[in-house]
């Protein structure tokens, strides 16, 4: 199979060039070619006008090409200084380590990118964006002039994104060319100068993003969200719709599917639910059949922890759970399944599916007892059930025997979803259901979720993607420090949600939104 054919891409010094495309469009292959990990079959690569005949990882490193991945590849038990030292210093086996210069150098680099990180901090103690900053410091220290960032914001909170963007802007100003890959369109509009769209291994087009007048400082607070819409208007060259059209080659309704269902009976009712080990305190919430409840909040607010309590991974130690009005205790995932609760976890690759196993095995994993009551595996029943879900959810695969790991992110997510749909749940908890999923698949997953709710399923959806939370949910429950602080109606303003998540006072936040509305 040909991953790329006839791709043209150019990067100028001092620009942020976004690379966009659905999963499987060839972004990663292109990156692998640029970093020298893969060899192209044809075509040329020029850097500074000089043609590079044979780009190997070592050569790419010498030429100043650095790649920062979504999951920073640092040694968690070493300090920042040590990590930077390992990357940049002499690699001879018995070279002497000069600790003072090493530390000084690290501190200098961190300062240059404006990162407020102690060089002596253990990497384990750093947050994800801080680790990314360390990676960037390494890249700068190695004299990188081309920095590739592969979905750097996928697991960051909105605040952390602001921090990262500031650094990217600084890189741009110092003349570094940045190749920026992201699925979040609003980031592209906010950050990129130009954008190149790939589809099916070909370049569909390169567009200038905006007429930038100057760099706007990014405030690390809730005002950030307001800016997206304004900027789009100020940008006549490219619209979000056009970008999506370029990506998928067809019109995708970017609008979230409308709510069609009426909330029915209360399926699960939580009363002062707490779990000390999971950091969940006093959560009270009703989940109704046919209703999508969005669970918003910053990372660490206890959203995933609440889901883990409901699913019995870290059982609750106080409070009550009422399922259809009847008191239940859920001490293990098996209990949760028996009570009709399904959980599509956040970390798809580690928890959602088992990558090495065939799709069919993954799909039936939660229903062993029902599908194979006499413990014997019934391959035919398994196969037909899997095929049913493959068709139903439109999974793109060669068949039920294909390994789950061979699928793209969006299709893996559909398999994770299929596993829980197969249990015929009454309540489905979705944790970041569209994280790392391309635009086309994202909209498909949204439609599926809506359809499920319409069929009478109660859905609890955790998401860090605010437009998604606001667009999809019938109600939005906002969590902060382990408890639900506010429940807002669906379609609320994103900043109201964010303000609640940040803990700003209610009245203040209302007034704030009021003024903003009159300004625009």
């Amino acid at each position: 199979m040909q991953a790329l054919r006839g791709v043209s891409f150019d990067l100028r010094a001092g620009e942020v060039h976004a690379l966009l495309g659905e999963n499987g469009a060839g972004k990663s292959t292109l990156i692998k070619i640029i970093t020298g990990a893969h060899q192209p079959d044809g075509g040329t690569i020029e850097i500074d006008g000089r043609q590079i005949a044979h780009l190997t990882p070592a050569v790419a490193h010498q030429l100043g090409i650095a790649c920062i991945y979504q999951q920073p590849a640092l040694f968690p038990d070493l300090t920042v200084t040590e990590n930077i030292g390992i990357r940049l210093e002499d690699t001879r086996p018995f070279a002497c380590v000069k600790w003072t210069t090493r530390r000084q150098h690290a501190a200098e680099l961190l300062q240059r990118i404006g990162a407020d990180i102690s060089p002596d901090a253990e990497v384990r103690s750093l947050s994800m964006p801080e680790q990314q900053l360390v990676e960037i410091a390494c890249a700068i220290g190695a004299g990188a002039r081309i920095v590739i960032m592969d979905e750097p914001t996928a697991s960051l909170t909105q605040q952390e994104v602001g921090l990262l963007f500031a650094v990217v802007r600084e890189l741009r100003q110092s003349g570094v060319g940045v190749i920026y890959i992201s699925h979040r369109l609003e980031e592209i509009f906010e950050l990129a100068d130009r954008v190149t769209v790939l589809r099916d291994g070909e370049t569909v087009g390169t567009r200038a993003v905006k007429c930038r007048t100057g760099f706007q400082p990014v405030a690390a607070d809730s005002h950030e969200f307001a800016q997206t819409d304004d900027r789009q208007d100020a940008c006549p060259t490219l619209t979000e719709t056009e970008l999506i059209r370029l990506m998928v080659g067809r019109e995708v309704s970017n609008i979230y599917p409308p709510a069609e269902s009426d909330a029915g009976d209360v399926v699960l009712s939580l009363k002062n639910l707490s779990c000390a080990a999971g950091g969940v305190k006093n959560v009270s919430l009703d989940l109704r059949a046919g209703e999508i409840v969005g669970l918003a909040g910053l990372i660490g607010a206890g959203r995933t922890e609440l889901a883990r309590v409901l699913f019995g991974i870290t059982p609750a130690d106080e409070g009550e759970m009422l399922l259809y009005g009847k008191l239940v205790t859920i001490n293990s995932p098996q209990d949760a399944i028996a009570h009709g609760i399904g959980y599509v976890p956040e970390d798809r690759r580690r928890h959602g599916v088992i990558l090495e196993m065939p799709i069919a095995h993954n799909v039936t994993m939660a229903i062993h007892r029902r599908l194979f009551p006499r413990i014997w595996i019934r391959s035919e029943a398994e196969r037909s059930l899997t095929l049913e879900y493959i068709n139903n959810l439109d999974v793109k695969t060669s068949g039920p025997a294909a390994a789950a790991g061979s699928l793209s992110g969006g299709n893996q997510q559909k398999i994770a979803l299929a596993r829980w749909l197969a249990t015929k749940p009454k309540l489905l908890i979705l944790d970041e259901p569209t994280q790392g999923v391309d635009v086309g698949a994202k909209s498909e997953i949204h439609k599926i979720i809506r359809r499920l709710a319409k069929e009478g399923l109660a859905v609890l959806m955790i998401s860090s993607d605010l437009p998604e939370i606001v667009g999809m949910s019938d109600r939005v429950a906002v969590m902060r420090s382990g408890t639900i602080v506010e429940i807002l109606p669906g379609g609320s303003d994103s900043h109201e949600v964010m303000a609640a998540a940040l803990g700003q006072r209610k009245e203040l936040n209302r007034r704030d939104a009021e003024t903003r509305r009159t300004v625009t």
Partner: protein
Amino acid sequence: MNADKHRWKNILARHETILVILLVIEICYFQLAGIRFGTADNEANIVRHSVEIGLLALVMTPIILTGGIDLSVGSMLGLCAVLFGKFWRDAGMPPWLAGFCTIGIGAMCGGFNALLITRLRLPPLIVTLGTFSLFRGLAEAITRGVDAFTEFPDSFLSLGNGTIWGLPTQAWILLAVAIFVWLLVHRTTFGRSARAIGFSPEGARYAGLPVERRLATAYILAGVVVAIASLTYTSRLGTAKADAGFGYELLAITAVVLGGTSIFGGVGSVHGTLLGVAALAVLTNGLTRVPATMNMAGELSGVLTGVLLIVALAAGSLPKLIRLLRRRSRSKPA
């Protein structure tokens, strides 16, 4: 596409092919160079001597599939053998009753491993390293290191030395356990869960699989089968001493890994394990039949077992190695 579809199955199939080839080479060589290798007598001999290792390797397979390991099986065999002797001689039980009690002891030993692994969440390597010493120590304490149980009745000795329908008696036990374990691993939800746990214990937990129960089953099953192996062992030799089954755990693990089961869990098969046992058994026996190696068969079999293991495992990754070398030589001139 098709290659991708059954990739790990293909690797396995290829590995088993390699094993069959190695086994055929072994047999051909010993047939030509050995003295009285292919006689019915010697064949029965090979089977008799490989039953205990075979039983241990069979029940080690699901454990390794879960990503675990059981280092205590050899010591457990010793403890079971000694206790069987105690039950029969000192408690005055008839052999069949003593046998059943021994199986109960085996289940308890396996259960003890399982308890520590699932309840205290200790790594199987550490737990079974501990019980490896513990069980052997108990066996030695019971016999004070010198006591040996002998003069078992003929009815019991026939288990290790008699034949049924032309096959050594204990071969039927091996066959029955092999079929049982094969069905368990390849045809039931237990085997499916074991693989899932081996690939990703957290992933299996999030899928609602009863991870602890599955692990416990695997270790308890090992205990039961080890107890059975201690009976055939005692019967075959006619004595039960505290050093029974010394070093068997490593032979069993060698056979499992030789059979293509990944030590990291998830991938592997019971038929592969059986082929691994056969390859080891034929090698060990064959060396005693070839005049040139007859005098140092013990030493040589150790060396050649290592060679066999490396050859069998390296052969599987040969294509990868060739590709790597080719790429190196290509990128060098640049």
